């Protein structure tokens, strides 16, 4: 009984992870500029990989009776590092003057950056 239920849960988790990875790939293709693409890449890919790893962990724990701590550590590390990676990429893009999409409304970082550039040059 519990084996059947856990098989369904594991299958659901892995399918959900694959689905969110697909969504993030479509998002990277469809969205217009670096910043909105980073939204899709960092968020959906994080949850996608997390659910796949969680499914793998539960599979080996419940069905094979083998508890793998490394998978849990992998979940923790991805959870901590992928938002930081997204932040760094978009920050580097902004400081190398990659333009925002033309429909963008406001840009409050611009004035601050202008003032800073004046000091440096």
């Amino acid at each position: 009984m519990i084996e059947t239920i856990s098989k369904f849960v594991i299958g659901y988790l892995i399918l959900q992870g694959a689905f969110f990875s697909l969504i993030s790939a479509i998002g990277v293709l469809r969205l217009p500029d670096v910043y909105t693409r980073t939204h899709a890449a960092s968020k959906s890919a994080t949850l996608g990989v997390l659910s796949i790893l969680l499914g793998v962990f539960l599979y080996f724990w419940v069905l094979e009776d083998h508890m793998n701590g490394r998978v849990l550590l992998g979940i923790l590390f991805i959870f901590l590092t992928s938002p930081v990676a997204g932040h760094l990429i978009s920050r580097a893009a902004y400081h190398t003057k990659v333009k925002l999409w033309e429909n963008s409304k406001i840009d409050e970082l611009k004035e601050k950056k202008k003032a800073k550039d004046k000091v440096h040059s």
Partner: protein
Amino acid sequence: MAFQILLNFIIAITWMLLQDDYSFITFFIGYLLGIIILFALRRFFPRRFYLYNIAAVIKLIFIFLKELILANIAVLKIVLSPKLKMEPGIFAFETELEKDWEITILSNLITLTPGTFVIDISDDNKTLYIHSVDIANVEQARKDIKSSFEKAIKEVSR
């Protein structure tokens, strides 16, 4: 907080030595006794009883998970909608947090919040520059959520 945890470990080890029984169960009983002793003596510590901080950390983890799921549903809606109707933009957000680790956790939380993304942090650690996917209707709501994040983080470091 770290000092109180260390003290609790020392009480547990003393209990093991008193029982002359070095198993995990004895350590656990000693740890529970240590919690009771530290709770009874809490007014002698400069900071509050440490289990409150641990409860705040657990609450923060749950906020993290909830926001991650909500963020993904928001991204799903944006990516799969037939027309790109969003209005992205960058707005500034003043924060009251001071320590570096608090600001790191806040910006990680903001990054995993639906539709927002930290691009830059000013040099004096006072302003976060946040890229938002839909600036028209979201900005005010985001500010509300962020004040709740800030509150949760302050609760941890109190």
